[in-house]
């Protein structure tokens, strides 16, 4: 047998990811799983997968899990957390799921200070359904439902979830990260960890927005996708910490 070059986090199941080559969903899964391992919460964590490419996340994580209706993961997680307040509950959601159909649920879960954590994967497109426009799609970006490029006059503007959410009083940790370089991966993991710690401490709602690629529907190869993300998405969606009421976690 070949020697493994890295160890699979315990909180990831023995299942092969269904994601396309160069897709960042897999990296983000691994980071979440590593955080769960490090915080030693695998046995007390419940997860809610979305409808989107990461619908299978409920199978990829070795924790109790379910799939919510499209956009409703924060409400499902609310029900779980209220029923089992001593458990850790997180949602994993795409940008169509969270920022279009599920806008109301995420805003109100955040505003209630629901003690859950959301991993929000923003790839500026509807991946699963074949590359339609998302509310996060950039101006000028061509998708199957904005074939001439997104125009502000008719399709409106890219929506900035973190900027909107930072005004809600119930949110205690909010950061936008990317995973397009090893350094950024380390920072992204630290953000996810802090978001989970915020929940563990019972402080309130926490969310990490992760800028992500969709090579398949962007029509780019994995390397081009990272370049495109760096050059375009980061301009529209600047990386940074928006809310931190957790403080020093040392």
């Amino acid at each position, binding site marked *: 047998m070949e020697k493994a070059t890295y160890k699979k986090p315990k909180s990831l*199941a023995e299942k092969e990811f269904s994601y396309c080559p160069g897709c960042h969903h897999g990296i983000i899964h691994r980071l979440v799983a590593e955080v769960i391992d490090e915080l030693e919460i*695998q*046995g*007390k*964590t*419940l997860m*809610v997968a979305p409808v989107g490419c990461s*619908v299978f996340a*409920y*199978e990829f*994580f*070795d*924790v*109790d*899990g*379910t*799939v*919510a*209706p499209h956009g*409703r993961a924060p*409400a*499902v*997680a*609310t*029900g*779980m*957390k*209220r*029923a*089992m307040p001593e*458990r850790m509950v997180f949602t994993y959601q795409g940008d169509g799921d969270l920022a279009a159909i599920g806008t*109301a*649920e995420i*805003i*109100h879960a955040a505003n209630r200070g629901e003690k859950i954590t959301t991993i929000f994967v923003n790839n500026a497109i509807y991946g699963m359904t074949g590359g339609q426009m998302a509310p996060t799609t950039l101006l000028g970006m061509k998708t199957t439902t904005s074939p001439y490029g997104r125009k502000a006059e008719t399709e409106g503007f890219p929506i900035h979830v973190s900027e909107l959410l930072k005004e809600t009083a119930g949110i205690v940790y909010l950061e936008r990260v990317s995973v397009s370089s090893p350094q950024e991966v380390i920072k992204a993991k630290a953000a996810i960890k802090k978001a989970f710690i915020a929940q563990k401490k019972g402080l309130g709602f926490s969310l990490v927005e992760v800028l992500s690629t969709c090579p398949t529907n962007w029509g780019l190869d994995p390397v081009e996708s990272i370049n495109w993300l760096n050059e375009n998405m980061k301009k529209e969606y600047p990386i940074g910490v928006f809310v931190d009421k957790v403080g020093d976690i040392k």
Partner: protein
Amino acid sequence: MAERIMVKGNEAMAEAAVRAGCRLYFGYPITPQSEFTEYMARRMPEVDGVFLQSESEVAAVNMVYGAACTGHRVMTSTSSPGFSLMQEGVSYIAGAMLPAVFVNVVRGGPGLGDIQPAQSDYFQSTKGGGHGDYHLIVLAPGSIQEAVDLMETAFRLADNYRVPVMMLADGMLGQMMEPVVFPEYVKLDGINDHSSWALRGTDGREPHKVTSFDIDPVRLEEMNTETHKVYEEIRSKEIRFETHDLEDADYILVGYGTMGRILGSVVKMARKQGIKVGLFRPISLWPFPYDELKKAAKGKRFCTVVEMSTGQMVEDVRLSVEGALPVHFYGRTGGMVPTPDEVFKELVRLIG
């Protein structure tokens, strides 16, 4: 003897749910059921329960889904437009085989309709409502006392079969006051032990997964077939109905819920005048008492179905009797409630 207390229907049902061991309530205000939500807001903190006013019925049903995943008794209540909004979630709950209780205090529709009592959500409640192959158990109480008594049954059925159960009331039941005897508090020990599948954290065991989802049609068919076996069992064991004066009757009146109760008065009026009428009142609308009604209708001259709608349950009555006798329909809609007098007149007209 337990004490009789005057209570409004909505509040009585809510109290019955608390006594049935429900400690998780998620809901959104809507007339004519808002007293239900308000009662839970006051009551849940007294029993260390959870009350949450959601941002919408869409959110409410999904909170119910999440809480039901943990296997604890959970419910919501709403009225017609609110239940329409919940349909996607109800379908997921049914598909994932989760126990949960819904109360629909039906009002006039379609659309915004009005806030008066109606029975126009029969199709939605008994024939699916949401997408996919699924059923709710639907119970239709005819009085506040019966609603109170059926509440624990609703939770028990939900727990036993892992299906959503709907208590189908109407604005009349929700809004009127009646003397009620409440049951004792249910001790839940073991009744709803869902530890074999519920999501409560692995604590070292194999992870549990709860979904209504399988990308593989072969497996999804298997999953749906399993669910339908449960539905078959429910069909064979959980039929509920009540009859009055059927034995020597020439004619049968059929109605459920508030209407069933009004028909009780019509039967009395008719009997006083020597007209031999009996009543068949389905209590479980799904599963519908097809065979029982067919038997009850045998040898009768005709059957009249009365509903606060333009005619919905009448279709199931026709299916029951399979053409063995004429099935007439009388209904009022839009929140109008047929009076005993007007139904009696209709009966006399039909007898001719």
